């Protein structure tokens, strides 16, 4: 494990058919930290990961490890541990064989191989499974073997490509916690790819949100949640989803469908704007709330510890979280002005009440 960081500078990838998978993406993976690439399918996150691994070549841009260029290092020599989405275990080898193949090929002494395999198997709880083949393992077990295969090589960098996406929900939750503990224990530098924002929020130290090959925001998870730099990021990150209204600015109000929202002083942007509010920031009541709006309750979704309400305000809809009740009722909504998120409708960029918009890349 080195203490240098991995940088990607202006990485662009065009495919043969002209499709542009990555557009001048830059990132920094800092030592000992987990960098997550988050985005919907097709946003280019897996492609970027494969470029870092050397399985694909960028059309332009550079990779650097510390001060040294990384682009021309052959795949097998990059010191990278890759965990595939579908695990890609060697079907003809046992778990032990899967874990030791890379070391054998690297001519590591037999005793050392045995030691490392045993250690890794213990960390991941694979002890009793060493003699089995991948076909005889459950999904969760296979996933752990895939992890082990990377771990056993003590690589400088771990690359994980949606490792949890093939597991069922319950297993996923458990593995998330295990992964977090594992990363901390190994002190690894990790680049983690996922489309699941919960995973991203819980696992990352640094987060990059990608869409259609472009970086929309690069910050810590809390920052991305609190001050999303783009309306897409705002709705993609955070569960339950943010409610977003679109309207035309008319002086100091935003004219949406059937409702007008006061625009804070000093907010830049004219023309079409978007305003968003997270359900957890919305207050509901059955009696009139000062500074609020009347709303008509349309959908009630019990979520267990809370209830998700959808109310119609004017011609728009807003979602709110409330405590569970026998027969939830609500007819008024209110939110603090400071909890609103404002964006330009056209570009999606975040607008701040006084001053410049949020910078996209740190």
């Amino acid at each position: 494990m080195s203490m240098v960081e991995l940088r990607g500078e202006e990485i662009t990838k065009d495919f043969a058919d002209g499709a542009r998978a990555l557009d001048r993406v830059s990132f920094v993976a800092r030592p000992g930290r987990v960098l997550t690439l988050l985005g919907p399918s097709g946003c280019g996150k897996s492609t970027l990961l494969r470029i870092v691994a050397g399985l694909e070549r960028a059309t332009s841009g550079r990779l650097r490890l510390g001060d040294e260029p990384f682009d021309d290092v052959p795949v097998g020599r990059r010191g990278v541990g890759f965990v595939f989405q579908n695990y890609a275990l060697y079907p003809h080898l046992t778990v032990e064989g899967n874990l030791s193949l890379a070391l054998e090929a690297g001519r590591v002494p037999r005793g050392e191989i045995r030691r490392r395999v045993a250690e890794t198997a213990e960390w991941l709880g694979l002890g009793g499974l060493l003699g089995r083949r991948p076909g005889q393992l459950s999904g969760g077990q296979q996933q752990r073997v895939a992890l082990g295969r990377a771990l056993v090589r003590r690589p400088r960098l771990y690359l994980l490509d949606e490792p949890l996406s093939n597991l069922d929900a319950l297993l996923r939750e458990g593995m998330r916690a295990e992964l977090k503990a594992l990363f901390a224990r190994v002190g690894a530098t990790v680049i983690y790819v996922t489309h699941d924002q919960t995973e991203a929020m819980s696992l990352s130290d640094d987060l990059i949100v990608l869409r259609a090959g472009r970086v929309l925001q690069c910050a810590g998870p809390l920052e991305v949640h609190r001050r999303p730099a783009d309306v897409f990021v705002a709705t993609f990150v955070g569960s339950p989803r943010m409610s977003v209204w679109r309207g035309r600015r008319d002086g100091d109000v935003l004219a949406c469908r059937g409702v007008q929202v006061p625009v804070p002083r000093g907010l830049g942007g004219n023309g079409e704007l978007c305003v968003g509010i997270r359900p957890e920031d919305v207050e509901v009541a059955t009696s009139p709330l000062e500074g609020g709006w009347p709303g008509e309750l349309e959908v009630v979704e019990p979520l267990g510890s809370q209830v998700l309400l959808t109310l119609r305000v004017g011609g728009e809809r807003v979602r709110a979280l409330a405590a569970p009740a026998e027969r939830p009722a609500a007819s008024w909504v209110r939110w603090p002005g400071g909890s609103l998120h404002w964006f330009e409708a056209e570009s999606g960029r975040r607008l701040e009440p006084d001053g410049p918009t949020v910078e996209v890349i740190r």
Partner: protein
Amino acid sequence: MSGGANARPRATGALRALALAAVLAWSAAPAVWQALTALKPDAQITRTPTVYLPSPPTWRHVQALWDRKPFGRYLANSAAIAAAATLLCVSLAALAATAIARLPGRGREGTLLALLVVSLFPPILLLFPLYEGVRALGWVNHPLALVLPFAALNLPLAVWVLEGALRALPAELDEAGRLDGLSALGRLRRVHLPLALPALATTAILVFIFCWNEFMLSLTFMTRDAAKTVTAGIASVSGASLHEIPWGQLSAAIVIATLPLVALVLLFERRIVSGLTRGALKG
């Protein structure tokens, strides 16, 4: 060895291209040489050192084919017999495959395995009894003498390929058909067969090729020139008399006899490949 296309040094690329070119040349060379020989005037054929390119090319050999032996008849016989055998074989195989596809695991595997075993018998084993049968029925020099055996000998392959294709059809389609009120035969006609058409085509092409290429039975059952298929007709000159053969004419015959097959392969390469691999990989 994997497809990460861009991350590969150029040296291996050139080596690959060279190897590929060598393989292609090797595959095409004998046929090309025959074509060249067929177009050479006699004097150049037997000239030493070898004359490579005919100058000037002549069509005489091709023309002479029709004078000396009933070459056109050979071609017609091959085509007719192969077509008839293919039709029979594919029809029977389709019916059988439909049944086998719906059998439970063990019955299905057993049947397919049995078919596989059948296909492995050396044909020489069957030759004489079949010949006895053909003579007894008075079918010597009759197309049926070949059509029935050809259809039978290609059944295992045809059934393998078709069964695989039919089994890949989702069972829900059959159930939807039943709910819609179709009889078994109706479902066969309207649901299974149309969807299995590509597989049927593939099977037909493969069987046709095998029938056209068959030699041992054709040689033995067809003694009269007018009844011979093209393989027996051309190749019934055996080892000893190789020196008296007019090589120009023979080459022309070889080229013309093999041209349809080359065309078939070039046109239907993808189908043939998928059919063969499906048929042979199941083992």
